[in-house]
């Protein structure tokens, strides 16, 4: 690179002009680095108001590149680790996708009593009422997810955690903190078994 070109680039640096002059704009990356060295050599004591625009661009470009590489590595490590840790969640989702369950010998359940069973991944209640009707519902309290119980003597579903009360036939939230009714399931009684269906 010839000396005059360097000088032009240098003046740009000294002036701290934000707009690129035609020479500086056309200069290679090396020009601008040379210019910076030159300004130190000429003992420029005045405070540098700002760096040459190209250097700013280059710096920003390198930072951007490093940030992108960093994000790439974070994703390349984060994704397998997330999938690894989430494996049982996915497995549970598959298990929870059960829509129907057959409970063998559940038809023998005495009147005025209940059976706790696992529907998908969560506990559920099958109740044989005193009037020979049946109902089945989720046993997970809609308040803070405690498991509820059927109380035959009081004819109610009760949650021991915060005294929530539900109706044993409809699952409606009757008293206490529960915000929503328990999810009701469909019951079909067969000889030798009871089928519980979702929805």
């Amino acid at each position: 690179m010839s000396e005059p070109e360097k000088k032009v680039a240098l003046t740009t640096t000294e002036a701290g002009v934000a707009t690129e002059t035609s020479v500086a704009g056309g200069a290679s990356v090396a020009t601008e680095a040379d210019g910076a060295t030159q300004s130190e050599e000429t003992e420029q004591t005045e405070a540098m108001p700002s760096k040459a625009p190209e250097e700013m661009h280059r710096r920003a470009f390198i930072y951007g590149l490093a940030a992108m590489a960093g994000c790439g590595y974070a994703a390349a490590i984060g994704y397998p680790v997330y999938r690894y840790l989430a494996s049982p969640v996915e497995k549970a989702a598959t298990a929870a996708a059960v829509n129907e369950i057959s409970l063998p010998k559940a038809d023998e359940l005495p009147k005025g009593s209940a059976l706790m069973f696992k529907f998908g991944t969560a506990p559920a209640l099958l109740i044989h009422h005193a009037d020979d009707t049946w109902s089945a519902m989720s046993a997970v309290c809609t308040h803070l997810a405690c498991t509820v119980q059927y109380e035959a003597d009081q004819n109610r579903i009760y949650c021991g955690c915060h005294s929530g009360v539900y109706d044993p036939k409809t699952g409606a939230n009757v008293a206490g903190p529960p915000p929503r009714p328990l999810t009701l399931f469909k019951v079909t009684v067969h000889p030798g078994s009871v089928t519980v269906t979702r929805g």
Partner: protein
Amino acid sequence: MSEAKKSSWKTACYQWLDERLDLAGWLAFAKKKTVPEHKHSFWYYWGGISLFLFLVQCLTGVLLLVYFRPGPEAYESVRQITYEIHFGWLIRAAHSWSANLMIFAVMVHMFSAAFMKAYRKPREFTWWSGLALLLLSMLFGFSGYLLVWDETAYFATKVGLEIPHSLPWIGPFLADLARGGPDVSPTTLQRFFALHVVVIPAIFTPILVFHLWLVQKHGNAVPPSEEAKPKEQRKSIPFFPNFLMKDLAMWLITLNVIAILASMWPVQLGPAADPLKPAPVGIHPEWYYMSSFQVLKIFGALFPGTTGEVLGMILFTLGLVLWALLPLYDTSSQFGKRAKQATYFILFALFVLVTTTIWGYLAL
């Protein structure tokens, strides 16, 4: 937000932290610290690489801990990690590869420190703590190997524990204590698990901190050839950011190496351990035990009964003591002097280690 407002917010944030954590003090310290630069500087990175690999071990180890079940279900849980859980194979492979690389890096670090005579006064404790860290790393490897509970793991541990068993008087007692009975069983696995994830880390970590503190306190050692130079001819670079950036670049390379090895050559799982099945042919320990394995084999062939094993073990112990005491008897490598005898001794140790390892693999 205007530029001025943004910077005042940044300054306020920095000041708040600085008043409490003395950030400026730390930064000034890091900038003042220098690392010597000479033709052997490359070897300075191996301590950092070892440290990085240890961190990888901690991270992948904790991840494996999420699904690993010690006891009778160990094999099944490793099978699930390897074949059922998403990316479980990758985490396990990374843990296994990084373990091997860590022992390799620690060995390179130790031999380079030896050749540079970095063990000399005042760095004796750095040498000894480093040696303790290597031995504990090998114990990490030995205890972790059994946890997989496949055929190879089972017999490797069985053979490994038969060696102390052959020691007179205390041998059987020690081996029984390690196994939790006369045989390698799920009880052994349970206690190896406790060793691997609690006991050894609890001993390893404070020694590591001590080692790093000593390195910081005494600074990087320079080889005698460099010490011989007048002060003004010696070069150094600032620790921050120059050396740190180079160190981090090495960590990045190491990370890439682990990623390539673990994804291209994931570790397999052999058939479950069965004490009633004969040992598979050609069973051998991990490469870092190959040298001692081969020496014991040679001595076993030379002497009848367990005499060979006992003699082999005495030889190991003597060798290790001699190696550990290197800083005490290598008095010739004083300031600026080259210590030829010490170099020959280190070369001899390296030669024995490499040849017996290769011999071990050839004799399989």
